[in-house]
């Protein structure tokens, strides 16, 4: 039994979520292979060959794979799928885009966003915004799985010695073409990889007021996030969103500011190790999950907090 992990990368470096996905694959007790498709991405393969727990790397280097479009990527994975019992990718926007397409090409029912591996065919996954955890058993011959990265500790990025094998591009699709990308530039850590996250909600009242959070984030080396309400209100872009339909984070410290704590937001952060809530409404549901709650007006509390750090 071999397990295939689909690498996520930007043609230069591996994305951290790949290491969490490899960790999940290792729990399945098989040989773990990693598929890298991209353009001029040899450096990714070199980096990945050192990752703990991978025995073989398949690399398909072709201009058509530069932007990881779903159509061609799914076709490529399909061309090697029959060699594997399980195919895994992180439940990022990349994995969520590509894997269901692959799953339908293979006529199997994907298992989305698993948080625990019970056995080689049985998995746990959150449903209804994490209100419930379902245990499901898959009867498909190939298990196509997306993995919630925060639920698995990453493997070491060094200490491995995987072999590298080139594979041919397969069935390149011209249905979709890449036009452009606007990737937010920030000196702060990435939301899903940060060990401290400070998020603002509707209570922030405006996008301008997010500078109060940014000042604290810079002192703590934290990432800045937001609730859906703050995104909906146009305070910050959608890639700040933490929650059921945004990013799932589980940092060592999560500071929720002016966030009431709707179930959809809790779904994205309640596995954080320590949760702090600052809210002027003492009945806000966020206090039910907070380790430390401060009932205060955030416009007083944030400058004070910034000063004391």
């Amino acid at each position, binding site marked *: 039994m071999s397990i295939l992990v689909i690498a996520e990368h930007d043609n230069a470096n591996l994305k951290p979520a790949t290491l969490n996905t490899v960790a999940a694959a290792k729990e399945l007790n098989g040989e773990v292979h990693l598929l890298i498709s991209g353009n001029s991405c040899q450096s990714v393969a070199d980096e990945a060959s050192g990752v703990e727990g991978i025995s073989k790397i398949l690399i398909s280097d072709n201009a058509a794979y530069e932007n990881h*479009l*779903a*159509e061609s990527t*799914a076709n490529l994975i399909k061309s090697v799928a029959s060699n594997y019992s399980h195919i895994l990718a992180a439940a990022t*926007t*990349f994995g*969520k885009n590509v894997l*269901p*397409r692959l*799953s*339908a*090409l293979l006529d*199997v*029912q*994907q298992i*989305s*966003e698993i948080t625990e591996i019970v056995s080689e065919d049985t998995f746990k996954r*959150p*449903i*209804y*915004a994490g*209100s*419930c*955890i*379902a*245990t*499901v058993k898959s*009867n*498909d011959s190939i298990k196509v799985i997306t993995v919630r990265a925060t639920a698995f500790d990453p493997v070491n990025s060094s200490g491995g010695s995987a072999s590298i094998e080139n594979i041919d591009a397969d069935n390149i699709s011209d*249905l*979709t*073409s*890449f*036009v452009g*990308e*606007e990737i*937010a530039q920030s000196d702060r850590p990435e939301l*899903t990889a940060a060990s*401290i996250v400070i998020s603002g909600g509707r209570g922030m009242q405006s996008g301008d007021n997010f500078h109060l959070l940014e000042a604290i984030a810079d002192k703590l080396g934290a990432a800045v996030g937001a609730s*859906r309400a703050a995104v*909906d209100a146009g305070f910050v872009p*959608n*890639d700040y969103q933490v929650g059921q*339909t945004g990013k799932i984070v589980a940092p060592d*410290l999560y500071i929720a500011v002016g966030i009431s704590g709707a*179930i*959809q937001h809790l779904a994205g952060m*309640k596995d954080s190790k*320590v949760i*702090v809530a600052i809210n002027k409404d*003492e009945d806000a549901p966020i*206090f*039910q999950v*907070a380790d*430390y709650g*401060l*009932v205060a007006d955030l416009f007083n*509390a944030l400058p004070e*907090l910034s000063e*004391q750090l």
Partner: protein
Amino acid sequence: MKILVPIKRVVDYNVKVRPLGDQSDVDLNNVKMAMNPFCEIAVEEAVRLKEAGTATEVVAVTVGKSDSQEQLRTALALGADRAILAETDSLLEPLAIAKVLSKVIEEESPKLVILGKQAIDGDNNQTGQMLAAMLNYSQATFASEVIIDEDSASVTREIDGGLQTIKVSLPAIITTDLRLNEPRYASLPNIMKAKKKELDVKPIEEMGVDINNRMELLSVELPASRQEGIKVESVEDLVSKLKEEAKVIS
């Protein structure tokens, strides 16, 4: 241009769902049902394209029990022209739902299919992508902006680090993200008018589709709950707790 909008009846997003006493499934007795929020965004986008003169007809479709007609009527009240219910009493998985929808699409041959990126019950985020694979259509998931040209669409997608714009050839499958639009509310006159719009019911047994489930639901349980925390009195108190007790900042 005809647009098909698959929608789903789900538990209202304000309901906190709990497992049944025997943990065999979630408890859906007497809970409020509604159209999945991402499906509302899909209907809205299609209706706006019709209002802009880009689309000529908007067809809402769902796969489910007879009571899903309620959500189809909502779609009609929001501006869809007609509706189709692919009726079944079985609870289908996304793969089977996509197979049924692809049959409907073969019959209807729309130029564009817009659907929600995920349903807030199973949180699977699969159906649109599966549908695109089955029909060998292009796919543009997590859309925040859609611009239609003659034979293609330019779609801006919400991705982890920011935004990506791709051009998809039509027919295409588009799945909606939150910021694509803000859905309207149905007006009373439109709700009344919707009652008279055409709603076809087609039993899925007649479609010749393999709808067998591939997964078994073994149990449903509550997630591990967090230990109740404490309230601190001041910012100073908070900082000292974080430093000395939780040891998460230095």
